[in-house]
């Protein structure tokens, strides 16, 4: 509806100016709207904090000390390789800093070392527990150990980092392909659209899971293989939404005006249509990220995902199923998953509101 204009040509209606502080750039206003959603705002801080922390997992949770002072010289085992003989041991192999003999050398005679908060890496086998593995939480292993005696806390930290990095890259690749495919179909329409749609129908009817199983047996399973395979199929749903938005938008007057201004096709697509077609993309973004985390987790759970030694949430869950009484396995993993997914969804919600320019 058109609001009545004041009869004098002093055109800005004072009633309209109150709603938004003027002098703010579009970016500042978007940030303003994002902050208005408290849940999303705090989720963003917590999530960023945890994620940045997990990026430094090697420094937080590692079986190698951060700093060693041995015979008045400093060593950095986390970043550099040192033989055991460097510290007066017997072997030419890398020093095992958890070994009683090495520890003895490095902590006596004025030598000292600073260890990370959680002195286990994701592959370290902990010999502290006197109980059988999986061992319940103890003063050494805060969240207990898994069925091979590896520290659960360490595996969670590394597993979380891997899941998030995997999910973000999968989402970026899938969204980019999906947007591009949708843009081309929707903007050019006609024959381009027709052929693309038939291609999607054929491509989409390929059995994704079987392909994964087949590829897992042909190639060495790896995280990169998973990203490539899942990206090949993950873009189709999104491209349909972007296509529909473009089909709708390309006939609107502002697109005609842009053509009349002399804008090129790519200019119209990226500057005019894309920003107006992002609603479904933004809406699905948090769900895509959490979907990607869940995909990795469930593939690992089924044993089709990453190679066996890789720290992974899915593998921990599957151990939890094998050892039902070892509650610390399933509960802690479950907690990490729920926390991460929930925060992502809250952030996504706030992001959607922030990018809606019609909200003041």
């Amino acid at each position, binding site marked *: *509806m*058109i*609001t*009545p*204009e004041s*009869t004098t*040509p*002093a*055109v*800005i*209606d004072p009633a*309209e*100016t109150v*709603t*938004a502080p*003027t*002098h*703010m*750039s*579009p970016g500042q*206003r978007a940030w303003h709207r994002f902050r208005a959603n408290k849940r999303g705002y705090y989720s963003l801080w917590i999530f960023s904090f945890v994620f940045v922390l997990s990026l430094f997992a090697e420094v937080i949770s590692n079986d190698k000390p951060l700093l060693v002072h041995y015979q008045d010289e400093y060593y950095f085992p986390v970043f550099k390789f040192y033989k055991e003989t460097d510290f007066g041991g017997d072997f030419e192999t890398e020093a095992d800093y958890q070994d009683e003999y090495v520890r003895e050398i490095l902590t006596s005679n004025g030598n000292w070392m600073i260890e990370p908060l959680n002195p286990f890496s994701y592959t370290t086998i902990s010999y502290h527990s006197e109980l059988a593995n999986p061992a319940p939480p103890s003063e050494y292993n805060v969240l207990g150990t898994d069925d091979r005696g590896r520290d659960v806390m360490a595996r969670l930290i590394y597993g979380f980092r891997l899941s998030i990095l995997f999910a973000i890259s999968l989402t970026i690749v899938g969204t980019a392909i999906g947007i591009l495919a949708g843009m081309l179909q929707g903007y050019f329409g006609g024959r381009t659209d027709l052929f693309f749609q038939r291609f999607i129908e054929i491509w989409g009817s390929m059995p994704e899971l079987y392909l994964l199983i087949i590829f897992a047996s042909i190639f060495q399973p790896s995280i990169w293989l998973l990203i490539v395979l899942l990206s090949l199929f993950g873009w189709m749903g999104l491209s349909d939404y972007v296509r529909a938005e473009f089909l709708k938008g390309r006939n*609107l*007057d*502002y697109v*005609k*005006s*842009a*053509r*009349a*201004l*002399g*804008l*090129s096709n790519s*200019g119209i697509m990226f*500057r*005019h249509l894309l*920003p*107006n077609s992002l609603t479904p993309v933004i809406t699905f973004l948090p769900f895509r990220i959490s979907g990607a985390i869940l995909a990795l987790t469930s593939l690992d759970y089924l044993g089709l995902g990453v190679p066996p030694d890789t720290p992974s949430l899915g593998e921990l869950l599957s151990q939890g199923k094998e050892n039902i009484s070892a509650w610390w396995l399933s509960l802690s993993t479950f907690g990490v998953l729920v926390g991460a997914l929930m925060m992502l969804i809250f952030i996504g919600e706030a992001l959607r509101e922030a990018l809606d*320019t*019609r909200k*003041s």
Partner: protein
Amino acid sequence: MNHQPLIRVKNLSVNFTTADETVEAVKHVSFDIQAGQSIALVGESGSGKSVSALSILNLHEASHVNYPSGEVVYQQQNLLLKSEAEMRRIRGRDIAMIFQEPMSSLNPVYPIEKQMLESIMLHQRVDRSAALKLALDMLDRVGIPDPARQIKSFPHMLSGGQRQRVMIAMALSCKPKLLIADEPTTALDVTIQKQILELLRKLQAEFNMSVLLISHDLNLVKHYADYVCVMNRGELVEQGDIQRVFEHAQHPYTRHLLASQPTQLVSASNEARQTLLKGSNICVYFAVTKGFFKRKVDEIRAVDQVDIELRQGETLGIVGESGSGKTTLGMSLLRLQSSTGEISFNGQRLDALRESALRPLRKEFQVVFQDPFSSLSPRMTVEQIIGEGLQIHYPRLDAAQRLQRIKKVLAEVDMDESALWRYPHEFSGGQRQRIAIARVVILEPALILLDEPTSALDVSVQKQVLELLVRLQQRHQLSYLFISHDLNVIRSISHHIMVMKQGRVVEQGDTRTLFTQPQQAYTRELLSAAMLNHQQHD
């Protein structure tokens, strides 16, 4: 004679409440509707005229509305206090309503028959055959040819005028005492509009019914109603007999509305001016294809052998009803629509140029669209919208120079600089249209195609925009191609006029001659249907 009015609206106020705010849509409005009278509520959009009328039927969303004061008295009862079940019996039987958009007020999945019989059988408690007989009779009365066959049609098979006739037939089938007509002809062409209004007047006399007409169109109200209520921002500012109000308006707002009727804004054409745009034998045919191999079975001639000429600094008005090909012609001349025929612009042939060769020339001919809501990208700020053309056609300007030019053009269209950072949805219709105009004027074009630029605006805003356009034309020697269905607007701004019908040019000539001595029957029909203000002719 019974002096009791049919409906008495007393001190009515309507508030809409949402989670964060309360909007006072109608404030202390009182008026009477006499039996057999046609009364009009006029006002600009947002004035509360529809809200007041809907209150009579209590048709507002119950969870959002409240009535802080007032009553609607019908047969000694206050309709506002009635329960939903009691109101249902009054709606349709005693008080019926027709809406603006005839397509969306008929259910597209049912034939006309089912929809008509449903309401007749519900209110009159007659059996199917009697209801059918009544329905056929009503369709015949509203002028639907061959009612026995047409009653089986689905809504999409009828034209806009026919759909509105069906709506009227449905509304009148229960012989209501009052018909509320909410902008009943706004979506229709002028000639159809005239027929519908005449039909309403005829039926009103036949049924001795009252009509409450809601309209923004003063001309229409003046020719149709007996009594008029003028509303502004929720308040009823003036009411009285039609002649009294139109000739001796008391309230300043009424006078302002009356003065907002477009008046002649441009002087006569100057023969000495150079030709800017010339098109000859322009044709746009759309092929109608059939079957798997797209056999061409027929063609639609959207624009058929049109010759056109526009002089520098002048305005050529293209007028016609919907489907007459006026927009398609405009788009073809700007090469936004493929066509055949010669187009020369400033002596240069445009029709032979490829799109890439045309792009640098596009700066010279720009376009402003009808709907200021869809013609501005909702995710760009005003600065981005206005500055975009500069980036393309004046790439050498740096950011500061660009901003300076944007500010200058904003001032030229009477907008404040604080608009720069805002998004289009924060502005009213008239302001948006100013932004759309600023976007094209900043490129300093020679020609602007204005496609119904004022049709979505209220009359007072419409006049301001027209005045702005004339001012810009004089200052920058702009040429306009002005497309409109509204003869009043066309007359006020054009030097020359071209009348189109079904893709062909019916008549063209300079404005004064065309309005005073129309040569063709169709032009005369259009002029009479438009119910122009006669004082201006003299």
